[in-house]
């Protein structure tokens, strides 16, 4: 394996060198606890303020509406459990979709055990929810709509603005898991009527172990992690200063370069899709062809099992994924692919290639070439394939 071609940027991204440079002083040098009184700690405090402002700017929020967390998963847990708990007097009904990330789905399943009722909206064959179905599923006791901004497996971008309008019209709180969208597509919490938004640092060339939850100022959301008075008494625990600094830096870089990068990525993405479709048969594009993340390509290859495909690509130095990384411990086919209507054995043979802004055309050509060979080899091995 000479060169690595990393096409799994939806799982995690490489930390940007410049982001790391910004983080560095806060490890050994400015290590003060930002909650302390003495002036040494003010370095950390100032750094957090700057990061919070950068993050707020990146989604059109106010600084006081940004709460740092440990990552997208914590943000999702906090938002959903927090609203469930706080608005239980209004009702116990939550609307979400069948294609959410496990951070949302498993949280909802947990709430079901606590007596909440969850409506899991269907999606069409491209992974889009139906706005009418959403509106019809609203009940007097609905307290929350939680719909992801963009799907992590198939890249489909949901009609967030329309969802926000429906939520607003019915006076229901709207949370969106924007872990995959943040830094990749424009987000404006006010224009989109988003009340709560989850995001994670390591998906936008920021550090791992840091994320944030945007909480619109009128929303009552109690603590999920109890303890000290950090984050305006809403999220306890000594602040991860370097992490926060890194998240702020990554948010800024991602937003400053978003337009340019997206344009480039979409070109690359469409080229890759085209080449795969030209060179391999018995395949199916997963996710919407245009309403999709600029860096996401996802295909099913019939008669082939995903892990074999991944290992074979890995042997050629290509990092890809089948379903999401965090489900790799599980053996079930992706719930997202089942939700867009794929039968079990086809859902098993999916491949997700997620590009970075540094991915080159040469790399993509190499991937297509390898993919062609590997698919042929595995199909020859498959009892399902008759040629």
């Amino acid at each position: 394996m000479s060169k690595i071609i990393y096409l799994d940027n939806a799982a995690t991204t490489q930390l940007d060198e410049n982001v790391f440079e910004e983080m560095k002083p806060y490890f050994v040098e400015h290590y003060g606890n930002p909650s302390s009184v003495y002036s040494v700690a003010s370095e950390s405090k100032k750094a957090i303020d700057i990061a919070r402002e950068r993050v707020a700017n990146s989604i059109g929020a106010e600084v006081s509406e940004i709460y740092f967390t440990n990552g997208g998963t914590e943000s999702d847990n906090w938002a959903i459990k927090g609203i469930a708990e706080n608005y239980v007097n209004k009702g116990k009904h939550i609307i979400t979709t069948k294609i959410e990330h496990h951070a949302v789905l498993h949280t909802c399943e947990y709430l079901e055990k606590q007596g909440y009722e969850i409506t899991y909206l269907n999606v069409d064959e491209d992974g889009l929810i139906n706005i009418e179905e959403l509106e019809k599923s609203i009940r007097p006791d609905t307290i929350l709509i939680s719909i992801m901004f963009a799907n992590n497996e198939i890249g489909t971008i949901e009609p967030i603005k329309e969802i926000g309008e429906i939520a607003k019209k019915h006076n229901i709180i709207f949370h969106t898991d924007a872990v995959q969208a943040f830094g990749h597509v424009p987000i404006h919490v006010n224009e989109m009527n988003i009340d709560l938004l989850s995001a994670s640092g390591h998906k936008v060339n920021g550090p791992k172990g840091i994320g944030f939850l945007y909480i619109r100022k009128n929303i009552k959301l109690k603590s999920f992690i109890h303890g000290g008075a950090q984050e305006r008494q809403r999220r306890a625990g000594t602040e991860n200063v370097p992490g926060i600094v890194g998240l702020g830096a990554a948010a800024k870089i991602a937003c400053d370069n978003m337009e340019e990068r997206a344009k480039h990525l979409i070109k690359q993405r469409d080229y890759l899709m085209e080449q795969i479709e030209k060179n391999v048969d018995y395949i199916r594009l997963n996710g919407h062809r245009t309403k999709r993340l600029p860096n996401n390509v996802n295909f099913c290859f019939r008669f082939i099992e995903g892990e074999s495909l991944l290992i074979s690509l890995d042997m050629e130095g290509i990092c890809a994924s089948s379903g999401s990384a965090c489900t790799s411990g599980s053996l079930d086919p992706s719930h997202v692919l089942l939700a867009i209507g794929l039968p079990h054995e086809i859902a098993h043979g999916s491949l997700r290639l997620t590009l970075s802004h540094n991915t080159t055309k040469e790399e993509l050509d190499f991937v297509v070439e390898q993919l062609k060979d590997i698919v042929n080899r595995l199909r020859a091995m498959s009892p399902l394939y008759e040629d």
Partner: protein
Amino acid sequence: MYTEKVMDHFKNPRNMGEIEDASGIGTVGNAKCGDIMRVFLKIEGDVIEDVKFKTFGCGAAVATSSMATELVKGKTVKEAMAVTNKAVMEALDGLPPVKVHCSLLAEEAIHAALWDYAQKHNIEIDGLKEPKADIGEHDSFEEI
């Protein structure tokens, strides 16, 4: 995540393919993961003269198919019956815990092919039971 032996058998699977005039063919599916394995046996006298497989499954499934067929090749039917999934795993220097069930697929596929052979030739093989539709029940993946 896989040992070198597993990777070797995945990369260069032994006995991959079909046997046109097989004495017995067994196909099993794994309820746990939906994967499928088919084994072809060519038995002459009491000896497994040739064996081939086709697998739709994960890396461990391919590697255990390959290793399992290697282990039964040239053996008597009785000896082949002694090739358990444990033996296959050991020969591969182990599998990660979540992949133990994949090795059962290979064991069961061989048993299914032997069953098919026994049915066709109207014989009985000691310790061989009718294959189940799937092998999902007795897997050993531990959920927390």
